[in-house]
């Protein structure tokens, strides 16, 4: 991200009606929002619409931004909340079985033992679909949490800052999710 980007100047110009400033803000915030949407929502959800929706929310709430923290933190929190709302609207699968996987997904699941192999684009997509199917059995909060820990490698404190959940609540959730994940993976092996 461009460190030289002056957010406050951009906000001031936007409030004065400068459309170029809004354009700069959109370009500045797009990667931050896109990253969160890509990470937390299933692959087939319409990413473009959701990023736009988050940007609209950002602009409508910009007057609440105090400038104490970088704008990217503030927007990340807003984006995460919106993703969680979107996930809450989706149905949680009770479980996922081997028969629910397509042949490509089943191959990808089996190939996940081969740690050394580098997947091609197709394998990566199939692996992602398997991951999405496994994650669809978790609650939106658990799903979000496990991705932040296992994929992004975020610390408990970072997650707490971003979600507003306490560190003990996060630890408790993780403690509960792990056996659930293991059970789901073992079921896919059957």
């Amino acid at each position: 991200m461009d460190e030289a980007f002056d957010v406050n100047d951009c906000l001031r110009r936007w409030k004065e009606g400068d459309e170029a400033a809004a354009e700069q803000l959109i370009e500045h915030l797009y990667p931050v929002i896109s990253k969160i949407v890509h990470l937390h929502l299933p692959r087939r959800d319409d990413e473009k619409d959701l990023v736009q929706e988050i940007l609209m929310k950002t602009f409508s709430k910009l007057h609440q931004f105090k400038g104490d923290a970088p704008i990217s933190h503030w927007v990340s929190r807003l984006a995460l909340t919106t993703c969680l709302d979107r996930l809450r609207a989706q149905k949680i699968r009770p479980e996922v079985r081997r028969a629910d996987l397509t042949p490509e997904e089943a191959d990808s699941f089996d190939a996940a033992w081969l740690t050394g192999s580098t997947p091609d684009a197709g394998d990566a997509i199939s692996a992602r679909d398997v991951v999405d199917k496994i994650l669809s059995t978790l609650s939106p909060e658990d799903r979000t949490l496990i991705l932040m820990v296992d994929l992004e490698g975020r610390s408990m404190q970072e997650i707490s800052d971003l979600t507003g959940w306490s560190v003990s609540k996060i630890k408790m959730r993780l403690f509960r999710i792990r056996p659930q994940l293991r059970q789901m993976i073992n079921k896919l092996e059957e």
Partner: protein
Amino acid sequence: MNEKMNFRADEKWRNLLARSAATFAGNATPPYGFVTATLARLSAEQRQQEEFERIGWRALLASVAALFIAATVTLTLNYSDQRGDFEPGTRSLIQMDNIPVS
């Protein structure tokens, strides 16, 4: 045995995430036409917001004006009632029977 199964499941999960990691990465730049479409939606929403505010102000002014008129009428009627020598009920009887007062 159970521990071994847990270890295998954890390992498999980690590998699945590693294999799919590329699909989780976001885009660094918006797709073609995204910024223009977002700006258009932003200005449309701003226009709508301003329109709602205008309608709100007009409704508020109309309510205040209606309240003012109602208060004026009430006060005027009350004032004219108070000016009579008789109670409103008595005055109605006088008017009904056409009794000369003075």
